[in-house]
């Protein structure tokens, strides 16, 4: 019988190995994420079954050794046998003990690392997993169903054998076999889901399996720690460290409470299996689960549409007559997969940006300037895009095909658009990527508008009209394409010359024009100020000149009149004594005229002295040395007499 058990052990790990390999091939063939993660469970099951098989063989050897020993003891009765050391007497027992003491914890630790590592790696890599291949789904589904059947039958047989014969070493393999069966069944189900258009289910189930793998890793770790503190009862067989209760639980849902009870019994010695709760759950668990599944299925007969949404109701893929669009509120329908509702955010204002996308980090500054980057940097590009081409009236007028001039300028453009879905059926049924198409149409209309408008016009007076014109054009194009949207807003608030580059700052050049305008006005105003000063000054000067002339004229006439009158009187005096009068007049005049004059009178007439007279003006020293001004008489005379 023991030989049969060992054979079952061999079959267990062999089947797990073969099915694991086959499952890996099928997972690759059908791009099944669930199948791929399931392979990890099967491989771990293979390792656990292999280790338990070796442990089984060691126990069998020990049992045979013990029997042999008993036989020898009975036949010889020799005392010398009892004098040998126990290790020498029972080498198989010693081997088994060494195996359980060292190899089993080591294997369990490796198992923990494998489980944890695989859970972490798959959790990260599943995001990049390709969707299941629909063409291969039926084949994969059939193969997974076959694997599930094989694993289930063998697992059930092994677990039954383990329970009936009390062979605990068959349990780990049996648990993994049944779990493998369920995973293969799940993989078949996800393939069916993908076949029916629910490709995402495969990914969700794969994530769920990753979670289970992580939990088994935690359980293995906790088991290792508990093993250290577990109370040792003499004669009680130690629990298999690498046997997962969680896997046993998942592999045998019917034994949920049994496993829980066994765990409690094992750790605390409390007999849960004798309580009424256990007995009730054992009987009703399947019905409860079935009821839950039924309730879940029936919950698909009603749907609640949120205030921002509308729903499309389809029956076997066809819009339901009269109820094709569901408004916000509660609605009843046939259960899935007969009726399916697709939700859309139709009432919410949605938006996109044509051209440069503003960078919220850069725009956080209080002032947004043309000369500073304020748009989101795109991959592989400079700080901002070169801009959109816009027509130039001046360039167009000068353009000459022989010169190959480019009659265009570049503008940095960032135009936010806002829209609402007004006809959900048109939006959802006409185009596969309606939002992308709307963005393409808006881009096209902006380009089309810019290539036919003068740059300076659109940047200044034509801006508001241009925004409205672009909105209407995009609306018209959207209507032509039957997109079923209302373009609520198109803003032209961010349209300006490009930043340029370091060598050629374009936006800064536009600002310099404004500076030049101000400089021009400044120069004109300074000139006007000069004129405003110059002319009144000249007028004042003219008035002064005229006044002086008038004064001089009056003086001249008056003097002439006075001199004439005086001369008449002087004539009388002169005629009385001409010589005396002349001399007197002469001397009076000299006395008066020479009074302030510095006079040098040379009295010697017969000398040969050379007289040196210094008439040079000199700064008086006292002016330099002190504030006191001496009278001219005190000043040392520079004259030589």
């Amino acid at each position, binding site marked *: 019988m023991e030989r049969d058990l060992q054979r079952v052990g061999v079959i267990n790990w062999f089947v797990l190995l073969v099915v694991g390999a086959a499952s890996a091939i099928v997972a690759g063939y059908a791009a099944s994420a669930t199948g791929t993660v399931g392979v990890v469970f099967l491989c771990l099951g293979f390792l656990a079954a292999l280790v338990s098989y070796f442990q089984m063989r060691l126990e069998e050897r020990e049992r045979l050794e013990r029997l042999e020993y008993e036989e020898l003891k009975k036949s010889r009765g020799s005392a010398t046998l009892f004098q040998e050391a126990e290790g020498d007497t029972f080498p198989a027992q010693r081997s088994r003990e060494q195996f359980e003491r060292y190899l089993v914890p080591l294997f369990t630790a490796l198992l923990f690392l494998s489980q944890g590592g695989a859970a972490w790696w798959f959790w990260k890599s599943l995001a990049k997993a390709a969707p299941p291949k629909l063409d291969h789904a039926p084949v994969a589904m059939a193969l997974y169903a076959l694997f599930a059947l094989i694993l289930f039958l063998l697992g059930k047989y092994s677990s039954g054998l383990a329970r009936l014969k009390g062979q605990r070493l068959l349990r780990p393999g049996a648990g993994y076999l049944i779990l493998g069966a369920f995973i293969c069944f799940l993989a078949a189900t996800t393939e069916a889901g993908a076949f029916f258009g629910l490709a995402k289910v495969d990914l969700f189930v794969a994530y769920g399996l990753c979670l289970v793998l992580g939990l088994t890793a935690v359980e293995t770790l906790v088991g290792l720690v508990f093993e250290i503190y577990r109370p040792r009862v003499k004669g009680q067989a130690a629990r298999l460290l690498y046997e997962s209760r969680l896997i046993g639980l998942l592999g045998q849902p019917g034994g949920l409470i049994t496993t829980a009870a066994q765990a409690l019994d094992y750790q605390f010695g409390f007999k849960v299996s004798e309580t009424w709760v256990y007995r009730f759950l054992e009987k009703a668990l399947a019905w409860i689960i079935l009821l839950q599944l039924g309730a879940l299925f029936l919950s698909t007969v009603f749907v609640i549409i949120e205030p921002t949404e509308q729903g499309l109701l389809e029956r076997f893929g066809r819009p339901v007559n009269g109820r094709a669009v569901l408004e916000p509120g509660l609605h009843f329908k046939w259960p899935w997969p007969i009726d399916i509702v697709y939700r859309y955010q139709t009432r919410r204002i949605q938006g996109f940006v044509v051209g440069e996308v503003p960078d919220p980090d850069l725009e956080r500054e209080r002032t947004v300037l043309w000369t500073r980057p304020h748009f989101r940097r795109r991959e592989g590009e400079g700080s901002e895009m070169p801009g959109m081409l816009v027509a130039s009236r001046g360039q167009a007028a000068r353009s000459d095909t022989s010169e190959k001039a480019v009659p265009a300028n570049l503008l940095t453009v960032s135009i936010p658009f806002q829209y609402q879905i007004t006809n959900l059926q048109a939006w959802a049924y006409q185009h596969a990527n309606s939002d992308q198409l709307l963005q393409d149409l808006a*881009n096209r209309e902006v380009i089309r508008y810019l290539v036919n408008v*003068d740059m300076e016009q659109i940047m200044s007076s034509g801006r508001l009209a241009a925004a409205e014109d672009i909105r209407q054009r995009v609306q018209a194009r959207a209507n032509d394409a039957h997109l079923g949207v209302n373009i609520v807003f198109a803003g032209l608030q961010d349209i300006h010359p490009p930043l340029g580059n370091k060598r050629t700052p374009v936006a800064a050049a536009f600002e310099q024009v404004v500076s030049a305008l101000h400089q021009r006005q400044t120069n004109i105003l300074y000139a006007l100020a000069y004129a405003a000063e110059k002319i009144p000054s000249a007028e004042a000067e003219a008035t002064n000149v005229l006044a002086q002339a008038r004064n001089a004229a009056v003086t001249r006439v008056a003097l002439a009149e006075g001199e004439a009158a005086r001369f008449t009187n002087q004539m009388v005096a002169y005629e009385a004594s001409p010589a005396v009068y002349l001399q007197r007049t002469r001397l009076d005049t000299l006395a008066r005229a020479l009074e302030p004059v510095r006079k040098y009178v040379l009295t010697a007439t017969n000398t040969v002295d050379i007289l040196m007279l210094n008439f040079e003006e000199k700064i008086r020293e006292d002016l330099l040395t002190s504030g006191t001004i001496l009278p001219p008489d005190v000043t040392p005379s520079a004259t030589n007499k």
Partner: protein
Amino acid sequence: MKRNPITVFTAAVLLVIFACMLFTFQVRQTEVAVVTTFGRYSHSVTNAGFQFRLPWPIQKVYQFDHRVQSFERKFDETITKDQINVIIAVYAGWRIADPKLFLESFNGDTTRAEQTLEPVIRNAKSGVISTNNFSDLISTNQAELKFDQIEKAMLDAVQAQIKQTYGVAIESLGIKQLGLPESITSTVFERMRAERQRLVAGYLSEGERRAKITRADADAQANKILAEASGEAKRILGEADAKASQYYEAFRKNPDLAIFLMQLNALEQSLKDRAYLILGPQTAPFNLLNGAPGDAGAGVRK
């Protein structure tokens, strides 16, 4: 043998599901389907709804999205008729027109279909652009601009190429982006800057011109005012001279005396300020220094 009702129920449900999977399929409003029997085309399903089929591997169902698919070409460089390099990106809307042909042409793979359409669209785009001048693409003159016609020509060229071949129909085609290569962009930047510099220089020169004119006008006006004032002053003085001349009649009675008196007056006026006078002892009244009358031989000697 007693059977567990739960097992029976579950098995029945699973059987129904499996049977549905094998014998039926759904076609959504957005889809078309092609059914093949032992690999040979059987029929196409263009109406949405519940459909029956024979199980795999007898019949196989291929379902495709029947809606208009958006397809965007990369931003790539081409050249216009007047030899100006431009960068153009186009978008296209295409849908499956013939599901059977689509299946045969692309094995039902939309990615492969777009990869196949890409060179066709690119060829049409470059071909049409090369027959138009740059000013056909961009101009303020509405009559000169042929933007819409260029798009239409591209669409016609693509449709002519793919018709009856690929099982798809191009619904729309448009220019999504239009630009210039980086080297030309730099020169456009330079030209835009030069235009601004021209304006700057113009404004500054205009300011200088108007300032100088204003100053010159002011100077001229001031000069005129002063010149007129000077002339008027001279006229006034002339009139004064004329008026004063009538008084000079009195000097005719003794011109010599009048001249003598005038000389004295002139002498007095000329010696008023900062003069040095070197006089001989014979000059009256300093001749008195040589001896007073009645004091013969007496004199001042220094």
